[in-house]
């Protein structure tokens, strides 16, 4: 169900969303923009469904091409230099995040920006909702922002009777389809051009040709009317410079400039870790972000916003708000997990991740952020109770750590995330099992006993029966059971030596 219809189910105020009631294209419940964070399915059935979906192979291949283009881990010399500098810049603010945020806020306020510093996701969306209702806003034009996804902003504004339209082409496609973005930078990468054609044709009420130029023109015309009509713009923030009080937002489409300059009212939404020390730092961070995200030196546009409209100016927001929210982040400072706050949201880890690709994108993680960054970050955010087990949705291949432009040790954080999860569980079967395992396997005689047991089982129990035992049957769905009938057949060297141990047969 798309969130483009008004609360009363009338024809949308957004030109771009007209006809959305005609869209019948289905999607799994777990990819929906209306998925309640507390209600997502368990990871295993969700991922099992995801890998079997029609078209997932094509999505995987598209993501593989994008991953190969980026050649994770093979940073060219100039890219490597940028990466070193960028990694250092992103750690600077973590030393004194509050201090930098205060400077940022003070600078913005000195130029007429109303800054709201809030804690939770709920407070963030409520703050935006109040600004909109205070001004009688009925239509919001919004540019791409994962932070607004995280706080559930669009759904909240819709319940207040306010229409919200996504203006980034990929986000617009996802919105029409009623789905969450499937990748941080390419929200609709999980859809083929035929999928988009079918979707827009339903929206249009008449068939459109499977031509990206035609489809983009169709979207452009409809969205242009919304840029003109919207009373309020909402944008995200890529970097917020504390020294000058400047919000920096990158785009290729020009929609950020549109929403940030044409409506009279603008709200920028950012989580706390977007702050950077100096505006000059974007000389490093913008090329680093754009190279990692899109294999381009810069995007077509970098939009720098430092204040509300001044006397004599005829566009730019007359009223400019900046909502800065926390949602669990500052609690990470001073812990190893603070590293994830260095993330610049490039999405390169997602492109490099074989799990992400094989799942056909981020939907099957069941939360705002998918892929490696999501598996680390989502469990740490304020309102996520269901996401604590996400670090297990990963084969620990380490490609993400190589791909990260700011050198976040994602794979180590994923291992640590698993330990955190298990430490929180009440002592149960799994904890008991691993403790017993560790006792047995740190005692040589007991280790050898388990080997003998496996050897006997391998010789006496038919493979078909073995394959139905608990745990083994998880392996055996799709794979044959390994032959353990030779367990313990440790061959010896010619000398027969086991390093000084005088015992006989090594069984």
């Amino acid at each position: 169900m798309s969130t483009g219809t008004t609360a009363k189910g009338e024809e949308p105020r957004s030109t771009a969303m007209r006809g959305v009631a005609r869209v019948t294209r289905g999607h799994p419940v777990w990819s929906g923009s209306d998925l309640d964070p507390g209600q997502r399915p368990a990871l295993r059935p969700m991922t099992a469904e995801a890998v079997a979906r029609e078209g997932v192979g094509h999505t995987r291949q598209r993501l593989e091409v994008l991953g190969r283009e980026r050649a994770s881990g093979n940073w060219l010399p100039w890219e490597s230099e940028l990466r070193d500098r960028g990694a250092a810049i992103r750690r600077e603010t973590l030393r004194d995040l509050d201090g930098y945020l205060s400077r940022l806020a003070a600078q913005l306020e000195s130029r007429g920006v109303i800054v709201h510093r809030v804690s939770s996701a709920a407070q963030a969306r409520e703050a935006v909702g109040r600004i909109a209702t205070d001004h009688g806003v009925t239509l919001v034009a919004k540019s791409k922002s994962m932070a607004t996804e995280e706080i559930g902003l669009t759904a909240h504004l819709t319940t207040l009777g306010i229409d919200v339209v996504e203006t980034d082409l990929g986000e617009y496609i996802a919105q029409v389809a009623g789905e969450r973005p499937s990748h941080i930078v390419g929200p609709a990468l999980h859809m083929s051009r035929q999928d988009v054609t079918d979707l827009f044709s339903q929206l249009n009420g008449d068939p459109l040709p499977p031509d990206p130029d035609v489809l983009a023109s169709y979207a452009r015309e409809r969205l242009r009317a919304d840029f003109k009509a919207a009373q309020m713009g909402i944008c995200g923030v890529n970097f917020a410079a504390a020294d000058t009080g400047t919000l920096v937002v990158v785009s290729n489409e020009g929609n950020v400039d549109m929403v940030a300059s044409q409506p009279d009212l603008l709200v920028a939404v950012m989580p706390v870790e977007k702050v950077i020390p100096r505006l000059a730092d974007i000389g490093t961070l913008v090329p680093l972000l754009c190279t990692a995200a899109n294999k381009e030196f810069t995007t077509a546009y970098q939009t720098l916003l430092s204040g509300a409209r001044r006397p004599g100016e005829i566009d730019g927001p007359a009223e400019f708000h900046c909502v800065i929210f926390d949602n669990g982040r500052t609690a990470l400072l001073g812990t190893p997990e603070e590293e994830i706050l260095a993330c610049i949201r490039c999405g390169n880890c997602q492109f490099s991740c074989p799990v992400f690709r094989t799942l056909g994108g981020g939907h099957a993680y069941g939360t705002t952020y998918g892929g490696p960054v999501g598996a680390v970050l989502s469990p740490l955010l304020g309102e996520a109770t269901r996401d604590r087990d996400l670090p297990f949705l990963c084969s620990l291949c380490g490609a993400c750590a190589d791909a990260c432009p700011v050198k976040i040790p994602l794979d180590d954080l994923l291992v640590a995330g698993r330990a955190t999860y298990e430490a929180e569980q009440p002592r149960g079967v799994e904890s008991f099992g691993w403790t017993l395992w560790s006792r047995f396997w740190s005692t040589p005689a007991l280790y050898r006993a388990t080997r003998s047991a496996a050897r006997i089982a391998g010789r006496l129990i038919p493979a078909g029966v073995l394959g139905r035992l608990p745990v083994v049957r998880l392996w055996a769905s799709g794979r044959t059971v390994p032959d353990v009938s030779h367990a313990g057949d440790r061959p010896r060297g010619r000398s027969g030596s086991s390093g000084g141990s005088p015992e006989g047969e090594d069984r």
Partner: protein
Amino acid sequence: MTVVSRPGTLPERVALFTTCLADFAAPGPLAATIAVLEAIGVEVVVPRDQTCCGQPALNSGFPAQAGRVLAQTLDSLDGAEAVVTLAGSCAAMIVHHSTRLLGAEAASRSGVRNLWEFTQFVAAFGEDLDLELDATVTYHDGCHMTRLLGERTAPRTVLSRIRGLRLVEMPDSDTCCGFGGTFSAKFPELSVAMADVKLDNAATARAEYVVSADPGCLMQLQTRADAAGRSIRTRHIAEIVRDAMRTPA
């Protein structure tokens, strides 16, 4: 990451770290490893009290339990001038995680600072092996060895010394096969789907064998190929080298 020492001269004897996976399910590669090492001219001892590197528990979220088991294995390897293992992922586990689990002192244990992954040892010391094998193979780069150990050259160096052997690279040779240890049992459908991608890529090389330096990857790929009725054959690189030895061990 712990720095592993690299002596320049061939050690007289090496301790073989067998790994739990090979102990349970890969006796062939173990025998081949010993045969190759002996052909190089070292005495191979197999410390009886070794068990496991602890990786299954660490990856399942139980670091304390992992540390306990790793400690036992490091105890059994103490005093070894050189330790060789046939599993890239276990070598990577020890090199990358020992100090985190057991403290900074772990870096100076024999099992950590003197540890060699099999192809690293053979690449360094096996130049004089007389190797010939008329076969076409393709190579899968296991993740931990490639990324945590940073080693993708040694296996290819070793294969390049085998006269008559043709190595055909597969697309995305360093993309994960989907094993991931306990991941393979937690997310079987996803793990199998990843294995299928790897098998499809491997098949394009039209090789007789899919070769790797990790028994875990090989087990994942072979058991999936068998269940799916695919005629792909996997082989540990130690077995390929042993097969190629002109002078019998």
